[in-house]
């Protein structure tokens, strides 16, 4: 299985490089184009980590609509990055502090695939053991999302619907001609 880890590392490295490229791009149009590569890479990474459903979502959203929404936004604004008025020192401090705190937080998170992880010791075995009998469908991700955590998913759908309402309220009316 070492070879899969090797591929994982290669993909993650490319993901990092792409993120740096995107950050360096002054032309926002090029940055949008490069997010396409970022999306493709993250889908591949999710796949190598066996998260097929997440990968599927990333694939459909990344290829289907993300680039389009970015382009639509660019069409309504400008496509080059404007220079900041002054050096944003305060923002840099805040971002660095938050980053440090997050990195500190990571040290407590169980590592990927750790069998001693609380989720792996009682929750997952229960789903794996009981869900075929209780729900009886092969894809366990669907049974967790749609049945055990149906409230969550209802909340997510409501969020999407609310986003639609918000976008309509902001951009839905015909714009005045200038």
């Amino acid at each position, binding site marked *: 299985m070492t070879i899969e880890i090797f591929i994982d590392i290669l993909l993650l490295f490319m993901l990092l490089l792409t993120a740096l490229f995107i950050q360096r791009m002054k032309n926002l149009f090029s940055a949008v184009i490069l997010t396409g590569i970022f999306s493709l890479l993250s889908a591949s990474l999710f796949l190598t980590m066996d998260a*097929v459903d997440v990968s599927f979502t990333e694939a459909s959203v990344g290829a289907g609509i993300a680039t389009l929404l970015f382009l639509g936004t660019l069409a309504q604004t400008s496509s080059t990055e404007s220079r900041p008025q002054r050096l944003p020192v305060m923002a840099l401090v805040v971002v660095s502090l938050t980053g440090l705190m997050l990195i500190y937080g990571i040290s407590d998170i169980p590592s990927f695939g750790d069998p001693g992880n609380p989720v792996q010791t009682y929750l997952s075995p229960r789903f794996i053991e009981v869900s075929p009998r209780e729900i009886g469908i092969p*894809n366990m991700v669907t049974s967790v999302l749609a049945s055990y955590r149906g409230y969550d998913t209802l909340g997510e759908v409501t969020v999407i619907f609310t986003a639609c309402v918000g976008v309509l309220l902001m951009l839905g009316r015909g714009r005045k001609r200038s």
Partner: protein
Amino acid sequence: MEHHLILRVIAKLMIPLILVFALYVQFHGEYSPGGGFQAGVIFAAGFILYGLIYGLDKVRQVISPVTIRITAALGVLLYAGVGIAGLLLGGQFLEYNVLASDPVHGQHLGILLIELGVGTTVASVMIMFFYVFARP
């Protein structure tokens, strides 16, 4: 759009395939990766392709913005309605076991219906986003 001959013809070929594939993803969420959310986005992608090539006016004739608003709400209502149906049939909110005589069948039916609700809402919202963002 006479000068986009190739795009026009290829779009005619591809759009029905994309739509059928989206519905396949929608209804096979229980067996293979996928489900309502992914299906909704792919379904919307079919419409977006049509809108890009044939123009916004044409796609608005196929599905009018008013219809889109109604279907977006209908999806959420379908989801919540399944929950309410569970309440009325003597279970708890979003309990699917009581939807049919056999609990496993009830679960199947419930999951199928709520995935349909998710798919409807997501597809409508994505098409709506396209309508809003594609305008000058």
